[in-house]
């Protein structure tokens, strides 16, 4: 397999992981809105359903994007595809 094909394989793998986490926090947990509301887990004292819509999911998305960017940079470096700094 060529270097480029390997690079793309890894990139795609990272995409699937990223989208899986995204799916859980943007769609998955909201299938269980009522269950979250009844849950005894109360971040900072807020009902879990309320907290996830106000801050929880939003904050996780911010972290997820930075994490994704870092991983993708590592993959690019590994295969020598990262940009030269003076580009």
């Amino acid at each position, binding site marked *: 397999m060529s270097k480029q094909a390997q690079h793309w394989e890894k990139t795609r793998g990272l995409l699937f992981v990223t989208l899986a986490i995204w799916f859980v926090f943007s769609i998955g947990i909201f299938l269980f809105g009522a269950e979250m509301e009844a849950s005894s887990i109360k971040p900072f004292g807020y009902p879990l359903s309320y907290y996830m819509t*106000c801050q929880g999911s939003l904050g996780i998305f911010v972290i997820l*994007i930075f994490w994704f960017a870092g991983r993708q940079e590592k993959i690019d470096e590994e295969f020598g595809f990262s940009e030269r700094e003076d580009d």
Partner: protein
Amino acid sequence: MFKGKFIDNLPKIYGTYTGGFIVFIILMAIGEQAGMSAKVIGICFVAFTVLIYALIGYLSRTIQVDAYYLAGRQVPTVFNGMATAADWMSGASFVAMAGGIYFKGYGYMALLVGWTGGYVLVASLLAPYLRKFGCYTVPDFIGTRYGGNLARLSAVIVLTVASFTYVTAQINATGTIASVALDIPFNIAVYVGLASILMCSMLGGMRAVTWTQVAQYIVLIIAYLIPVFWISNKMGAGVFPHLMLADEVARIAELEAQFGLGSVKNSAADLKQVPKGLSGITKAHAEVNTTPWKFISLAVCMMAGTASLPHVMMRYFTTPSVKAARRSVGWSLFFIFLLYSSAPMLATLSKLSLMDPNLATGIIGKSISEVQAIDWYQNWNQANLMFVSDFNGNGTLELNEFFMGGKAVVLATPEIAGLPYVISGLVAAGGMAAAMSTADGLVLAISNALSHDIYYKMINPKAETAKRLLIARILLVLIGFAGATIAALEIQGILGSVIWAFDFAMSGLFFPLVLGVWWKRANAQGAVAGMLGGLAAGTAYLIAVRSGYPGFLDITQLTFGIVGSVVSLVLMIVVSLATKAPDAATQKMVDDVRVPSGKAILGRQH
């Protein structure tokens, strides 16, 4: 001043600017103490900030294509993040979002999740690849990747429909704020708003819009956060409201029960008295009040729409590298998060201020005549944003007898909570910044697509630089005027048309963009079918639902993008597979887009 070294000096320049703005706020506060009238303070805030933006726009003027379309591709990560956040957060986010949460609670918060979750799709599926492509506009990518003028034209059509729907709402918002702050009639204020918008973009294109948007972000975030923190501290609710309002949320639930939320229904005759656009509290504050599907379908539409709206995507074309584009998406969302996570807190504080009889500001349970005598009630009643009426004739204001407009949550809460008027002036300046920055991004996206993709690429490929930029500027002004003219007619509300814009963009552009990078086999015929078919299906569904068709699967006029995008996806796959695979050169182009290193597909001057 705006060359080379300017980029290195950015933190210093915007640091000074922020400091200057804070000094200005303090001066206004001193002025208020010294007896300056509320109206003068409002005028000063709006006029001063708009003049600063115009100055930045003038200083950023350019005669280079590269700077006009891409801000010279040298916008640093964090600053591009701020500019994108301002580009993104519209008048609707600033003025209407907290109000939506206040009235509709959990069901409405699907928009918060959707408008942030979409950035994960932007970062992982699209932005870095489109940056590598080196295109000037979104149709530029579609036209080059798929090949042919028809694909390019289809993309321009979808872009124009979505962005134009959006921009009229923004010009409408600038008009509303300008008319309140400057005390002029709305249909004149709309053109004042338009003039301010054009001053920021006409001379310098993307470069001017970038640097004004950074300035506008700073104003709007200061204007949003100061009242939230101030009110929270004044009420004794907590120094840091975002983490400390749990008791207040619980207290609202307690009061809702005490005041019999939902137990008394207003009769149709009673509701007829209530001015149009105002509503009462009918939904519990923090309860899960919608079905999972309704929540998720709305969130999905907003997410896919985010990833397809061209005025956001084109901000990532301005970063120095692919790596910077990716990180820049993270910063954008961080800056957006600062405001979005504060909106629910503002809604909570606002509601508690009005409801809690233990607070001096609480009005529910007081006598009607007492409430009608309050200064701020009279002001906002006159502005048609507040209304009380003694439906049951007991002389006391009940929860179901108090009505408010959505905008009042942001605009009136500082006054209700007893903050000095200088804060209300600041909020007006913030709302103006939010609406202007989004309008600028949208007008520029449309006029760039028309001037670059239609005029230069399709009509006159031999046009000289000066002529191209002249055409771009003329189109910018024309589109601005068209938008303002429609805005002056006041056909739709602000929030409704914003949501439609997302659905239009999602219907026509989401899959053609994503598959352009992720599916090599996608070809021009498939893309054209996907774009036009998706847009047509979505629009048809919207029209059908609006004229009484009950719809299917609970898909409403707010989520018609689901219909459009599914049709788009199916058409794109079927038509692509039924026709010839893209040639070797196109396949090679897709391979090149997938790695960050190496030359951009389209050169610097194209």
